[in-house]
């Protein structure tokens, strides 16, 4: 073994990323090439365009990560790559590139689950901030909420002697929370991705103006333990999960649409959309916000965000209490949300638990988290087969998958 340097590569969605992490805990470099400009006009990620951009970006991004870290390919001990879940064509660019580079350098490849990567983004940050736990620590079990444009999952993560183990305890039945943000943003003519826009505008609205409600997910007795045929349920079973920890974000998007129609808030959407595409900077003052949206729309936005975060909070803290877990990790793109961080932090102190977030840069997709998650695997000698390919619906913390 050399210096414990792992090159991480991530290409599961719309960011091409590479990073060098030492011994799983020290980030030497983390480079992310975002494709937001490519996809913004479509209001969402276009898989074929994402794949093309990854192919163009992969060499410069890896080059930059090595240069920034001040290491050469021959200094590396392994190459870690996201093998799923994500967009098949996008994942394949990172995977086939990583396999070929590893072959050329005679290095092992470590396949990393993107969701595990997100959890390690918080752990990496805790290590670097000096607040990490040891296996003997009471806080060695944590409840992780992975919440982004593609995922809304709750995991029980436990640090054991052989490394971290995960158990899925909750998930969304349909849209991810970040997906709801994107769809509502698109409906209101706001920029893509929707999160930063909605978060910035929500500050200037009344969060109690529109009372959005989330229905409790009912146990589906008629399914007899089988997963329902919803989009998300296909990728992981939900039958064994406690229905109190299941999310659903497709309803609120429809509720927002209905509210917009009933209150004639459609007006100005096209102009707003054009303005945002031309200028593309979220507002900083109430005047700037009002120049973009009338107060009724600001109130709607604030209410939407208040409701979504409230639902994430309610179920996360209920799961933590039910599992007797005293530490919560919130990670993924939505974990960059200002209001989410504030409210989770307040709620945690009320419950007598702690909550940790990654840095803002580590919240969204990056490769440092992939290299960090690969470290325990490297130590255990868990290397990928040469036939490694993309697994778009790769699950985490589910038996037999």
């Amino acid at each position: 073994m050399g210096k414990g340097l792992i090159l991480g590569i991530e290409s599961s969605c719309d960011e091409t990323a590479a990073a060098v992490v030492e011994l799983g805990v020290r980030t030497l470099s983390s480079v992310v090439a975002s494709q937001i400009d490519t996809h913004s006009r479509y209001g969402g990620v276009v898989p074929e365009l994402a794949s093309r951009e990854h192919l163009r970006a992969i060499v410069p991004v890896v080059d930059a990560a090595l240069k920034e870290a001040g290491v050469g390919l021959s200094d590396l001990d392994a190459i870690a790559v996201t093998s799923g879940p994500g967009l098949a064509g996008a994942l394949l660019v990172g995977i086939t590139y990583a396999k070929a580079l590893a072959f050329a350098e005679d290095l092992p490849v470590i396949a990393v689950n993107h969701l595990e990567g997100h959890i390690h983004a918080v752990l990496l940050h805790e290590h670097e901030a000096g607040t990490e736990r040891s296996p003997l620590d009471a806080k060695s079990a944590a409840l992780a909420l992975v919440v982004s444009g593609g995922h809304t999952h709750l995991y029980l993560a436990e640090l054991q002697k052989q490394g971290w183990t995960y158990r899925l305890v909750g998930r969304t039945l349909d849209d991810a929370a970040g997906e709801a943000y994107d769809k509502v943003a698109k409906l209101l003519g706001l920029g893509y991705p929707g999160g930063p826009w909605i978060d910035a505008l929500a500050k200037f609205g009344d969060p109690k103006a529109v009372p959005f409600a989330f229905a409790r997910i009912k146990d589906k007795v008629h399914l007899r333990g089988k997963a329902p045929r919803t989009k998300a349920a296909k990728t992981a079973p939900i039958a064994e999960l406690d229905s109190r920890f299941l999310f659903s974000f497709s309803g609120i998007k429809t509720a927002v649409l209905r509210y917009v129609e009933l209150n004639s808030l459609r007006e100005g959407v096209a102009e707003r959309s054009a303005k945002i595409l031309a200028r593309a900077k979220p507002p900083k003052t109430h005047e700037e916000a009002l120049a973009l949206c009338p107060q009724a729309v600001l109130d709607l936005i604030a209410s939407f965000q208040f409701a979504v975060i409230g639902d994430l909070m309610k179920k996360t803290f209920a799961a933590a209490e039910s599992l007797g877990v005293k530490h919560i990790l919130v990670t993924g793109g939505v974990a960059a949300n200002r209001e989410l961080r504030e409210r989770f932090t307040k709620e945690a102190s009320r419950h007598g638990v702690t909550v940790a977030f990654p840095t803002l840069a580590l919240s969204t997709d990056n490769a440092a988290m992939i290299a960090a998650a690969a470290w325990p695997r490297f130590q255990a000698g868990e290397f990928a087969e040469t036939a490694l390919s993309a697994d778009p619906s790769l699950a985490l913390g589910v038996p037999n998958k």
Partner: protein
Amino acid sequence: MAAKSLLVLGIDTCGPTGSVALGRLSATPGLEGRCSNGSSIEILGQTELDGRRYSEKLVTVVGDLLRSHGVKLRGVGCIVAVNGPGSFTGVRVGLSTVKGFAMGAGMPVVTISRLAVLTAKAGVNAAALDAHRGEVFLRVVGGELLAGVDELAEIAAPERMAVCDEAAAKVLRAAWPETELVEVAAPTAADALEHAASRVLAGDFVELALLDGNYLRRSDAEIHFGASA
């Protein structure tokens, strides 16, 4: 490299079936010489690949081919990559792999269009490959493009052109009934090595960071959005 020989690795994963080939290129004509510029290429071996398993198999197949000839990747002097047109994913799996090999082992890359290989193979200067949806990837004198019935009606029909699949032949017979179709077997990585040999010797390499797919077709999102290619 005048009097020396050079090992070249060819990779084509653009079509429904792919292949990788290893060749030895000499700057002076030899017994196997088939190139026009005084160079010769000897194909040492070629392996076929199932189009549904490119991402799983490509690196392994290249490794096995090299090993069976006692060659290390660093012993390869140049990669010839067929960069499309064809399956979008196939094109990308091939090129991502080529980028990894080339960045790791530090060898130069020459890219060649699959249509260029097809024309050279048939000894004509026009060719077409099936592009599905009743369209063809077309190469005529002056360039390459994606062509359907409307585009074909606007282009002067060549006298002769190469085809290697029935779907493209059908589109062309309907659009250009006067054109003689020269039917050849689908181009392979070995064909690519032969037809790119002169460019390898001339040092016509592509900048690795700029190496990109020759897709010819835009993504559906762009087509429906009406954006420019």
